[in-house]
């Protein structure tokens, strides 16, 4: 437990992604099985001990510390595990040495609600403050130390010089402490056998289309729908739904778990029913509507009824035990079309091919996409196999040109990491009426990209010279500068005073020359809303 505690502590105080990766990788190389597997499970949020909850520790502490002092301390520290680890009474040095993670797992797994209050203190008594912090985090899950599951898996891959896609390929089929995974990656054993398990296959991804013109006899075009990319997997009758990052989101969309009638792996866009995208009945609602369903662990009946989810299918990877990924796109597409009649149209439809005479005709069609609130087009090489990741020349995303609006810089905030001493996050606004008739600026968005390092220095200087107010890390500045802001779409939002929220705003150009009263008005922005 000591090494794991040291790792957690080091991660807490590290902001650099590369340093975090190096710390985790070194730990995984140097720590024996099965402890390193359990540590990896903890970092990826894959451990759960039903008898141990944050409340279990809270109650233990309240028996040992005055409850008023506990509450005052918890409020100040802001983290139950940390408060508990700091307040746990240091006993006389225990003769037992710090337990291994394996021993901790064994103890925690065997706990019941009635045995926990007597067994947990024995474990805590063998640890110092860092050890207690690590133990409580480990036992209750939810590390909250700035390490995502993806980052931990990337560190695993770096540690043993394997590809993270391959790790993802096996990940969801395996259980902590991942003995087969370490046997393969660390000890040169056979890859884990994952047939017959409903596991995630890494997605094939696209590059943005820049200047090239493509020959449509080599590439097929499809709409790029604005939902979330998902993979629906059914093996031996068991169905799982995975997000783009490979997270299991089955619980968030329970209506999709018993509707795939055959064993298969399909790739598509998850959306909710509506009439915004595509503009026709039976189409899809905007991303804004879908957002209300994301990130939920439990879904109410009302949600299921009002915002029913469906999958618009792009591709098929496996069908009834047969791996189709080696086939060209056209052959997979044919397989998908053949399967479609067997799938219920309540929950599935097919992403249609966009027919165009030639590339310039396709460009015209793409221009019209805005009217239908579609993100843009996808171009897929007709003979390309399904390959994980982004391989140049196979798939392209050709987003419609961004929308542009002129906004006025209002607030700036210091960045982090490399930009930690620079004011690099900007909040900007539009006029709520005629600026010459006393209109005010209302914030409409925030951006921290789209400028060069040289421009950043200039912006940083401007912020410091024109500061009106300071609120912690944020500075309010005089209204002197216009940004031309690019964004993908704009939606109504109750969360913002301006009543709207932009998607993917970024600085397109800095208009050092433009007077602020010539910046856009809210009405212009509102007219672009397609909800």
């Amino acid at each position: 437990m000591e090494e794991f505690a040291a790792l957690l502590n080091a991660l807490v105080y590290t902001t650099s992604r590369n340093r975090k990766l190096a710390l985790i990788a070194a730990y995984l190389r140097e720590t024996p099985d099965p402890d390193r597997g359990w540590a990896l499970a903890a970092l990826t949020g894959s451990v759960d001990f039903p008898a141990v909850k944050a409340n279990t520790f809270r109650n233990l502490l309240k028996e040992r510390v005055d409850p008023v002092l506990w509450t005052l301390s918890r409020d100040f520290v802001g983290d139950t595990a940390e408060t508990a680890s700091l307040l746990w009474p240091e006993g006389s040095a225990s003769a037992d040495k710090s337990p291994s993670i394996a021993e901790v797992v064994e103890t925690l797994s065997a706990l019941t609600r009635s045995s926990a209050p007597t067994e947990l203190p024995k474990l805590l008594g063998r640890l110092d403050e860092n050890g207690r912090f690590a133990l409580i985090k480990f036992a209750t899950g939810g590390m909250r130390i700035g390490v995502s599951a993806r980052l931990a898996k990337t560190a695993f891959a770096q540690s043993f010089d394997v590809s993270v896609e391959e790790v993802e390929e096996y990940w969801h089929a395996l259980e902590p402490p991942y003995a087969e995974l370490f046997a393969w990656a660390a000890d040169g054993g056979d890859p884990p056998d994952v047939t017959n398990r409903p596991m995630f296959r890494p997605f094939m991804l696209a590059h943005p289309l820049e200047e090239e013109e493509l020959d449509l006899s080599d590439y097929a075009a499809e709409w790029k729908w604005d939902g979330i990319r998902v993979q629906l997997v059914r093996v031996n009758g068991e169905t799982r739904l995975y997000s783009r990052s490979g997270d299991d989101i089955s619980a968030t969309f329970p209506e999709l778990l018993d509707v795939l009638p055959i064993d298969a792996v399909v790739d598509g866009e998850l959306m909710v029913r509506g009439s915004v995208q595509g503009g026709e009945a039976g189409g899809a609602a905007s991303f804004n509507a879908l957002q209300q369903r994301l990130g939920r662990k439990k879904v109410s009946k009302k949600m299921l009824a009002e915002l029913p989810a469906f999958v618009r299918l792009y591709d098929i990877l496996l069908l009834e035990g047969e791996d189709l990924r080696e086939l060209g796109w056209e052959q997979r597409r044919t397989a998908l079309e053949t399967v479609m009649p067997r799938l219920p149209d309540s929950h599935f439809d097919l992403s249609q091919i966009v027919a165009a005479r030639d590339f310039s005709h396709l460009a015209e069609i793409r221009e019209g996409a805005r009217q239908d609130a579609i993100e843009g087009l996808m171009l897929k090489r007709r003979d390309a196999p399904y390959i994980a990741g982004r391989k140049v020349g196979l798939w392209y995303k050709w987003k419609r040109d961004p929308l542009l609006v002129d906004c006025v810089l209002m607030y700036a905030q210091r960045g982090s990491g490399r930009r930690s001493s620079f004011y690099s996050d900007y909040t900007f606004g539009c006029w709520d009426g005629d600026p010459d008739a006393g209109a005010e600026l209302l914030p409409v968005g925030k951006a921290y990209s789209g400028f060069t390092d040289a421009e950043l220095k200039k912006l940083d200087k401007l912020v410091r010279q024109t500061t009106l107010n300071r609120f912690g890390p944020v500075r309010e500045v005089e209204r002197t500068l216009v940004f031309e802001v690019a964004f993908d779409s704009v939606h109504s939002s109750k969360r913002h005073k301006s009543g709207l929220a932009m998607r993917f705003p970024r600085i397109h150009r800095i208009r050092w020359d433009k007077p602020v009263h010539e910046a856009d008005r809210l009405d212009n922005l509102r007219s672009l809303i397609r909800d």
Partner: protein
Amino acid sequence: MSNPFSWIRPEPWGVQIVPANCWIDPGRAVDRALVTHGHADHARGGHGETIATPETLAIMALRYRTGIENGEGEIPSKATPVQYGETISLPGGVKASFVPAGHVLGSAQILLEHAGERVVITGDYKRRHDPTCAPFEVVPCDVFITEATFGLPVFVHPPIEQEIAKLLGVLAANPDQCVAVGAYALGKAQRVIAELRAAGHDQPIYLHGAMEKMCHLYEEHGVDLGKLRLITDADKDDMRGHIVVATPAALNDRWSRRLPDPITAMASGWMRVRGRARQRGVELPLIISDHADWNELIDTIEEVNPAETWITHGREEALLRWCELGQRKARALAMIGREEEGE
């Protein structure tokens, strides 16, 4: 004075000694002030007369020109030194003595005696050894007016040797980088440097400009700080593998761009709490404080064993609760202008 202790009146901006018509650590300019130590939330300029230890007056002369002649041969702000252990008479039959508080150079508790009653105002204090100042002395009294900056049981400061060893360990492990230690310019900076010297670190230490004069003042008072250099006089590469000491504010600002790959450290009692360190972008937290931690606060109250405990700036609630649990008479004074982060 019929009511006990009514001659001492706490106001939000300071403690008034009513019969003497003077104030302790007032937050606004007054005719006559007794000042416990030189930190800005206790000492300020512009008093008609400032009564403090010679060291505190030297610090205030540097910061506020207290006791220094103006161009016309006048001293607008008079300075009256009182040595540790010395007792002076104030108007109205009040006697005042200055007793070491162990917080920073020159820091004092003030013992007030009037009508057979004894009141001690601690100012800020700590109980740990500090090579840069005289150690805290326990003074029996009826009313003990204590600080409570770290008045929560989560605050337990580890031994400073352990934190200094941590700092030197990181420095040795990263010879191509510098470790930039954020520390308050008065007290913390000099203590950290002195403790580094005591641990055998004899390399030059680089200073932010704001530290220079205060370090010289400490040296003039007999605190050896070893080889000090100014960052403005150094090449970026010279600082690789060395310790830089700067004000906490400078570390997060563009000032830090002149340092070679700095590892950001912070010497503060707040570093005990991970979230506090993360908020400030601290990579190497050093739990080094010039204040009493929770155990020292409560041990000191028990040792002094006053009839009443009055609690000033900090987390009064928890210490008040502790007094209540031990059936000690206590009250919280609402003091303003004592910075929450003030160390």
